[in-house]
């Protein structure tokens, strides 16, 4: 059923998907300060430049904190919602599901814009707080959905079993439900972290003086310089991402779930 020309289509697909990464990779080691192709010579200066550019370092920490904080909060708050949706039948569960999947349906740029206007209306608000709220809101769909899926795979009666054996509800949840959800939680965590860490549209409007996320500062760097520093930074980020995902896979066995 699979014929030769279909394999050719596979080659085309992958060169289109991954080609740009190879180009970035090459450019990040090229000695020329412009975007001429092919890159000339070899240098690590662009990588050095990444670490010397304070806006990248500062915004990296902002993005890291933001991603950790909003992912964890969206998980901690989203988990009970997922639990309610998968363990109870109730009037309004449709509404709850819609509300929690809505942030994925509304364009990110619009969310950022609407939130900025709303926060201005509310009055004094720290930039980081605004970013945190924005990111947490857009992560709910991921955390609720992924955790729900993992809860659906777990027999709801195991909690009753734990309780009938003498555990209280909370202990039953901690000892029986949580350990069985770890792959799901890890998947939701990695997914949420990456989504937040890479977000541009929401952060764009909500960034402010001294507090900018890494992708937004990359974007504004491009408004000032077209040099391979961005390529070097992108190469580092790809490595960071691969390491993150691989570690999650090794430690937590991500692929059982995803």
């Amino acid at each position, binding site marked *: 059923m699979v014929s030769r020309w279909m394999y050719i289509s596979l080659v085309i697909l992958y060169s289109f998907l991954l080609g740009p990464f190879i180009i970035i990779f090459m450019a990040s080691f090229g000695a020329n300060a412009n975007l001429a192709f092919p890159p000339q010579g070899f240098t690590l200066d662009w990588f050095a430049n990444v670490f010397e550019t304070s806006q990248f370092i500062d915004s990296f920490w902002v993005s890291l904190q933001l991603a950790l904080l909003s992912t964890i909060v969206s998980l901690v708050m989203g988990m009970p919602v997922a639990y309610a949706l998968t363990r109870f039948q109730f009037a309004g569960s449709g509404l709850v599901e819609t509300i929690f999947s809505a942030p994925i349906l509304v364009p990110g740029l619009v969310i950022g814009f609407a939130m900025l206007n709303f926060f201005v209306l509310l009055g004094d608000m720290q930039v980081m707080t605004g970013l945190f709220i924005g990111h947490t809101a857009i992560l709910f769909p991921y955390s609720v959905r992924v955790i729900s899926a993992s809860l659906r795979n*777990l*027999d709801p*009666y*195991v909690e*009753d*079993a*734990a*309780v*009938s*054996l*003498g*555990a*209280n*509800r909370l*202990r*039953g949840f901690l*000892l*029986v439900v949580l*350990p*069985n959800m770890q792959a799901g939680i890890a998947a939701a965590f990695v997914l949420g972290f990456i989504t937040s860490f890479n977000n541009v549209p929401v952060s764009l409007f909500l960034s402010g003086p001294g507090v900018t996320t890494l992708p937004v500062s990359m974007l504004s760097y491009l408004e000032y310089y077209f040099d391979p520093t961005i390529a070097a930074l992108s190469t580092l980020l790809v490595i960071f991402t691969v390491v993150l995902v691989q570690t999650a896979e090794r430690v937590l066995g991500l692929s059982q779930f995803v």
Partner: protein
Amino acid sequence: MPYLEIHDLTVSYEKNKPTLERFSLHVEQGELLSLLGPSGCGKTTTLRSVAGFIKPDAGQILINDRDYTRLPPNQRDIGLVFQSYALFPHLTVFHNVAFGLRMRRIPKDEVYSRVANALKMVGLEAFADRRPAQLSGGQQQRVALARATVIEPQVLLLDEPLSNLDAGLRVEMRQEIRRLQQQLGITTLYVTHDQVEAMSISDRVVVMNQGEIEQIGRPESIFAAPETVFVADFMGFDNHFTAVVESVRDSKLTVNWGGNPIELRWHSKFGSPQSGARAEIFFRADNASLLAGREASGLAGQVILHTFHGNELQYLVETEVGELSIKQDSASERFAPGEAVTVQAQTQKWIAILEDREQNA
């Protein structure tokens, strides 16, 4: 002296639509009592109320004279076996069984010996380090049993424990459950919708329908003498038709069978039936026989279909009281479809049930 007592239990999932209403039941110490009925009859609700997962609107649950009604489920000391087994997927067999003992803060060596003992009783000593996913369905069921009994609960509750097993294993497992229950002498409530299972395993059977008890009794008496139409249907009486009572004499009433009067045992909730009342007649397929041609001694019929079941043949016969299903020894005379036959009643195992209040009052 009842060990587990349920008094006037009322449970409703939705307001004003109680699933159980003033439901009462007693289980004797060491007894295995089955709750038998179709899905939605309230048997699982009863069981989950005893386990404490459902807080009743009203009523009382007593175990060994202690009031359990408001006690949280984790303090009840009840062993529970689930239809899905509900084993903890992340724990080994050993740790699954040890869970309840851990919760009771039993010392480590005692946990070890009790778990080992429990696993031995269900024949799983060699599987202690496996995860549930590495076990067969029957083995998982045994782990669930060991886990529920190792805590030496006051009452053991089993919720359709065999329905996820295939037929052969089911027979084996129910013997296993019965053996274990008797060995431990543990008071047990067993929920099932399978009448054969209930008959084979129980000391007593409670047939439930729509939140009410239809009949309580020893398996033999329920099997032989159902008291309501519902129970008779549920007990696998293959044939059912309605007849008019011609006369009543003490424990027997007479109805017409192909022009001949036949005398039947009867049961009525409303006292002795009057002649002229409508009676529901039940009999099993092997409690009638077929004769070739039209005979005055029985009911005339015509064979529609016959199927072969090893040592017996099953016929479907068209008669004036409806289509009847009748089993014959395969060694006996055979009838082809279309052939005229006479159905002979073996009335000692037939039963007449009168439920219509107005005609019997």
